[in-house]
């Protein structure tokens, strides 16, 4: 096993955004090894933007961002890509390939395994996410929740140190969504994977989240950082309290 640093993800005074606009100013947080870290906030507040920075899709213009102890420089890119797995908000499966082929692709390109081993591994990944029987379906033939699970299987293929999941539960029925939460917890228990998860669902945040960072679009800033329980009871910020206590009479 390779040694990972204590902080898998580190952001120091990062201005998150695009060349055309800064979405969040001065974001600072770090994610410890083995932690499940939640990014939350209203729609359009910049959660996916942060994810794209973390995944190296969007260069950071000011501040420092390190993943697995490395910054996203051209020299580190190949190494870093092997340590992360990303599930995009839409799943982003390759539409011209079957589910199994989607999972096989990273194995073919990087694993060095033989043909049969690769196939076995891909099949076992699919059954890990409960989709062994969807192997030969095209992404367009399965539901949104199934696509997201295939995407998680694909992201896990090379045993990354950290998985970035963008809204795994959004738009899914409660049962499927709870199934994804269980999957995340199981993966961490089995493989020690670190997770950064974008989520809105209070239930899922309390169930899987060790700590979370909350963002506010209006203030263009991170407004809270801490364990969900702590924020729910102890936060002074009315915006944060309102989010954690919405629709709940007691906790």
């Amino acid at each position, binding site marked *: 096993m390779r040694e990972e640093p204590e902080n898998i993800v580190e952001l120091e005074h990062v201005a998150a955004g695009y060349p055309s606009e800064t979405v969040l100013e001065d974001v600072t947080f770090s994610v410890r090894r083995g932690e499940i870290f939640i990014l939350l906030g209203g729609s359009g507040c910049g959660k996916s933007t942060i994810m*794209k920075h973390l*995944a*190296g*899709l969007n260069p950071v213009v000011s501040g420092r961002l390190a993943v697995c102890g490395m910054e996203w420089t051209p020299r580190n*890119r*190949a190494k870093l*890509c*092997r340590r*992360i*797995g*990303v599930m*995009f*908000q*839409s799943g*982003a*499966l*390759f*539409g*011209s390939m079957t589910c199994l082929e989607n999972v096989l*692709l*990273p194995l073919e*390109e*990087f694993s060095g395994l033989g043909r049969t081993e690769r196939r076995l591994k891909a099949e076992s990944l699919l059954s890990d996410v409960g989709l062994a029987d969807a192997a030969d379906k095209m992404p367009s033939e399965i539901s949104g929740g199934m696509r997201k699970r295939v995407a998680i299987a694909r992201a896990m293929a090379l045993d990354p140190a950290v998985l970035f999941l963008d809204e795994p539960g959004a738009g899914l029925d409660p049962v499927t969504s709870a199934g994804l939460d269980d999957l995340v917890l199981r993966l961490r228990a089995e493989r020690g994977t670190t997770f950064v998860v974008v989520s809105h669902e209070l239930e899922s945040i309390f169930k899987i989240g060790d700590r979370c960072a909350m963002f506010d679009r209006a203030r263009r800033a991170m407004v809270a950082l801490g364990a969900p329980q702590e924020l729910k009871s102890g936060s002074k910020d009315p915006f944060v309290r309102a989010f954690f206590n919405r629709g709940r009479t007691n906790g």
Partner: protein
Amino acid sequence: MGFLDSLGRAAAAKVESFSALCSFTGETAAAILLLPFRPRRFRFGDFAMALQRASWDALAVVSGAGVLLGVILAFESATALKMFGAEVYVSDLLAIGIFRELGPLITAIILAGRTSSAFAAEIGTMKAGEEIDALVTMGLKPVRFLVPPRIAATVVAMPVLTVCAELAALFGGAAVLRMMDVPPAVYWDHVKSTTGPWMISYGLLKSALFGFIAGFMGCFCGLKTEPTADGVGKAATAAVVGSIVAVGVADGIIAAVGYLMEG
């Protein structure tokens, strides 16, 4: 402010798209030149699929366009040559025009409309669906992954399609001349004596180049797609227009250089 501002913006956009074109050209060149060293990186399945769509699926429309081209050229040139009682030379004119110029050109225009736009739409849809981003985060270079198999497909498909268009055009011409009482045997004799292997291979080399251009433009416009509702449509249009313009420019340069070298 308003005018200068928009002028500046337009100039900046031009510079930006030119630099995007340059970096795409560089990446494509690197991807193709590295291919012999890593042949297993070539995505053969994508190539086969793209080749089938670019060639087999286009055969009917290319042949149809070829027949029309031959018929129209024959009628038009016969009207002029008839005044001198020289209808039989329509066959020479047809052969030269088709093999040197019009066969490759009309095939390239069809390929631009069918295949270049399809590449742009396909890759553009991948871009809009974050599939390109997914490739990048896996550590795969989108250009190396997507472009070589598609360009290879159009480069192989174009000469094949061009031959079909040319044969179809010659048969179209033959039919017209037969109506004008030029016997087929005489027609084909004239065609054979004016064309030679050099002329035919000149046309086919050009057509392979046009295939490269159409594949290249399709991939470039696809990768440049904006992730908006009409982004994919715009990319497909840009691919068709870009391919046809670039083919025209390339053809013009080749013709001019050929003329200067002969003269």
